[in-house]
């Protein structure tokens, strides 16, 4: 029976050969360091003389539920990697959700002229890229110009820019085609990074970066559990204090329960998302702290205003009054809260008093006026929503059971985004359910993308076509840049018009972030302008 042994040998040799042929062999995992390099070897900077005395040598471990990096280019990056990029790269400004205003980052001050069509930013002095090159106005100009030229990801945020000049090393001057709040644009979560264009072509393989932020890439192992590690950039302009984390690791953990176990064991420090059951546990588990923050992302039911039964505004108004908003918020157990209008709290244009209310009696009257109801005609409506999203599923179930009482049958179809969007562009449904969030902290994004008329259809999936609304939307950027109070008023008026008068949309809830951290971590602030981003530089380890 020698063939048994032969089979075994063949199997082992085959398996080894198959994988050996895949790699050149002899590479070191993580790839950026030779095997002999000590872990604490400084990165791009050579000067380590000012190392703090009592440093926190623990790594802060973040457990994301998806792979971290798909695109290392700061110009085109438009995905999950923002959780790393925001710590490696910096923008001119950074949005503060508490004050609702952009704050200094690489720029220390700025001003606008010519009715919001000219912007001048003063740059921080003595800032260095990780490459060692200084961050100058010329470098910033080159970076933004490259991002604009590549026209990928969120590069559209710079669309208003006509010309960038660098009159001196510390001054950056923008001339715009039309007025826009450029200080907000510059705080965007994507495509606003200032980077070193002389090294940016080398960032693709994740061994180096072109940023100026507090952290720089240590190792990147695509597809591995600990996909990415970052290390402190010793020459960071903000300096380093004892207690701050100088090492960061991203440990990809798709299963929520696994993430929770790891957090309880102290093996990871931050879990990006917990379900309501686990979040409730987190609140009462020693060694764990839980935080809940409303996001800038809300769910919208976009009604087909152009064709089908919802063409009748009375039917749309009825639908707005059918949904049990408070019941839904309770059923979501903290994963979402009732909003007010289209603009989430923390953004300019948030308007209190627009909270939706359930009113079944009025809904029945409105439907009856359109000849629908229990004793009248049956109404059949089609709805599409995101497959695999438990919160949307819950909303659809609630809506459907309420509608049934009014003799309205809801045909709800869960779909993957690309299929749902394709159907929406062909105006193939009565109700289109989707989340929306702004790329930079400006509510303009909802209005220009979702409610301004556009042909062919892109995101205006309620197919609303109203000249007065379009005109008001087009005036918003200039108002925001020049007269915030007037902009605020215009946003309030527009929301009333779109929600109450046109009834083009219902907003069931604003999503809430439910995070959990290990108890010893101090200084965590959840900034909804930068979804899922943890500013590791702001954190310290207690004790």
């Amino acid at each position: 029976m020698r063939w048994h042994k032969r089979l075994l040998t063949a199997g082992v040799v085959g398996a080894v050969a198959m994988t050996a042929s895949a790699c050149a062999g002899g590479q070191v995992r993580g790839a950026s360091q030779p095997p002999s390099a000590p872990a604490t070897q400084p990165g791009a900077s050579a000067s380590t003389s000012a190392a703090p005395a009592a440093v926190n040598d623990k790594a802060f471990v973040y457990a994301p539920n998806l792979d971290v990096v798909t695109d290392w280019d700061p110009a085109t990056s438009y995905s999950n990697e923002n959780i790393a990029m925001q710590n490696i790269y910096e923008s001119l400004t950074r949005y503060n959700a508490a004050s609702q205003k952009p704050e200094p980052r690489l720029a220390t001050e700025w001003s606008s002229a010519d009715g919001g069509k000219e912007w001048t930013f003063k740059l921080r002095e003595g800032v260095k890229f990780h490459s060692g090159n200084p961050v100058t106005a010329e470098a910033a100009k080159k970076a933004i110009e490259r991002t604009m030229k590549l026209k990928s990801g969120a590069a559209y945020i710079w669309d208003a820019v006509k010309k960038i000049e660098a009159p001196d090393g510390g001054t950056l001057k923008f001339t715009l085609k039309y007025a826009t709040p450029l200080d907000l644009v510059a705080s965007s979560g994507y495509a606003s990074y200032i980077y070193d264009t002389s090294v940016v072509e080398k960032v693709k393989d994740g061994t180096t970066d072109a940023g100026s932020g507090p952290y720089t890439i240590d190792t990147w192992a695509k597809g591995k559990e600990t996909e990415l590690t970052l290390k402190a950039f010793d020459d960071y302009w903000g300096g380093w204090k004892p207690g701050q984390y100088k090492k960061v690791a991203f440990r990809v953990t798709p299963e929520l329960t696994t993430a929770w176990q790891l957090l309880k064991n102290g093996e990871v420090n931050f879990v990006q998302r917990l379900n309501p059951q686990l979040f409730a546990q987190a609140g009462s588990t020693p060694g764990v702290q839980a935080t809940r923050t409303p996001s800038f992302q809300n769910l919208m039911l976009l009604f087909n205003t152009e064709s089908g039964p919802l063409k009748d505004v009375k039917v749309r108004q009825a639908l707005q009054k059918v949904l049990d908003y408070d019941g839904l918020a309770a059923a979501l157990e903290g994963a979402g809260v009732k909003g007010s209008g289209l603009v989430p709290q923390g953004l300019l244009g948030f308007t209190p008093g627009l909270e939706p209310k359930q009113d079944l009696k009025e809904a029945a009257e409105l439907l009856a006026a359109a000849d629908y109801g229990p004793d009248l005609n049956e109404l059949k409506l089609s709805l599409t929503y995101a497959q695999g999203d438990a919160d949307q599923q819950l909303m659809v179930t609630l809506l459907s059971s309420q509608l049934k009482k009014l003799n309205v049958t809801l045909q709800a179809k869960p779909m993957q985004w690309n299929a749902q969007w394709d159907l929406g562009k062909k105006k193939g449904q009565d109700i289109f359910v989707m989340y929306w969030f702004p790329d930079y902290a400006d509510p303009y994004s909802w209005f220009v993308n979702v409610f301004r008329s556009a042909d062919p259809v892109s995101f205006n999936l309620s197919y609303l076509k109203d000249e007065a609304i379009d005109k008001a939307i087009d005036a918003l950027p200039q108002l925001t840049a020049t007269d915030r109070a007037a902009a605020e008023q215009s946003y309030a008026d527009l929301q009333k018009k779109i929600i109450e008068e046109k009834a083009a949309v219902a907003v069931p809830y604003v999503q809430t972030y439910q995070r959990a951290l290990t108890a010893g971590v101090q200084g965590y602030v959840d900034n909804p302008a930068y979804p899922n981003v943890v500013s590791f530089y702001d954190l310290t380890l207690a004790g």
Partner: protein
Amino acid sequence: MIGYLTRRLGQALLVVAGVVTLTFVIMRLVPGDPAVAYAGPKATPEQLAAASRQFGLDQPLHVQLWNYVRDLVTGDWGTSLRTRQPVREDLFTAFPASLELVGAALILAIVVGIPVGVLAARHKARLPDLGVRLGSMLAVSVPVFWLALTLQTVFASHLGWFPVAGEYDASLDTTSPLTLWTNITIVDALITGNWPIFTSTLDHLVLPALVVAAYPAGVIAQMTRAALIEESGQEHVRLERALGFGETTILTRFALRPALNPVLSLIALVFAYSLVNGFLVEAVFNWPGLGRYAFNAITSADTPGIAGVTLLVAVVYVLVNLVVDLLQGVIDPRVRTR
């Protein structure tokens, strides 16, 4: 023999061609524009058109199929819409980790399954046999996902005997970096003498390997038992009994070897099955293998990624079947003429 070999190879190629065509058709039948998955949920019409052009999605379907097959043959498995890396490279990163897990599980299953099967056959219809039959039945039918979560909660989280998740302690990458030769961590650690990573990987392997091993161990035990019982009815066994050999000696020394033939073909097939069965286990234990890659590809509508995983698993199935067929041909010449 050569005729048999070419016939089998030809059949295997046909199956692969069928899988390729089927995957392609299904990929294109799924509603929705694959370009959206690449260009992002908020892509502008220009970005979508550019992505369509880049992936040849603007071509007629038959041209796309032809391009797809041509690329596959030349070793280009397409670019993942999600990771933006060549699918082949992605698979070569993920596959070794799955191989490691399934390999460890199979070793475990064989080491446990065969002796247990012998035990059951030796004490046929008595308590040990009943126990083994019940145990193997449970092992085969328990849902892997449930078993994985239970073992994780009890042995990792509560008792702290094993790590909760992961392939090995990642901090070892800085203190004792691993040199890669085969991409299979435990093998590389062994051949380069990297003991910290070797022991850490072993420690991390125990729970997920146990879960993946449950099904193969169950079927191997059942098959060994059945084959041994059948073999002990053979004439040579009567002769051995007449010569005065004890029952245990007869089973282990004379009956086991011929009885292992069907068990070996079973092991080969169970290997391919476990690869897919392990997907859920990988998700629970953060194992950086094919399962996690497939999960991510499916949830983000990454059609080239999904097609790549499907094709790889199909090829493994076909290869394993081919090896089994050929081996049977070697052992039993009668098979070749069938």
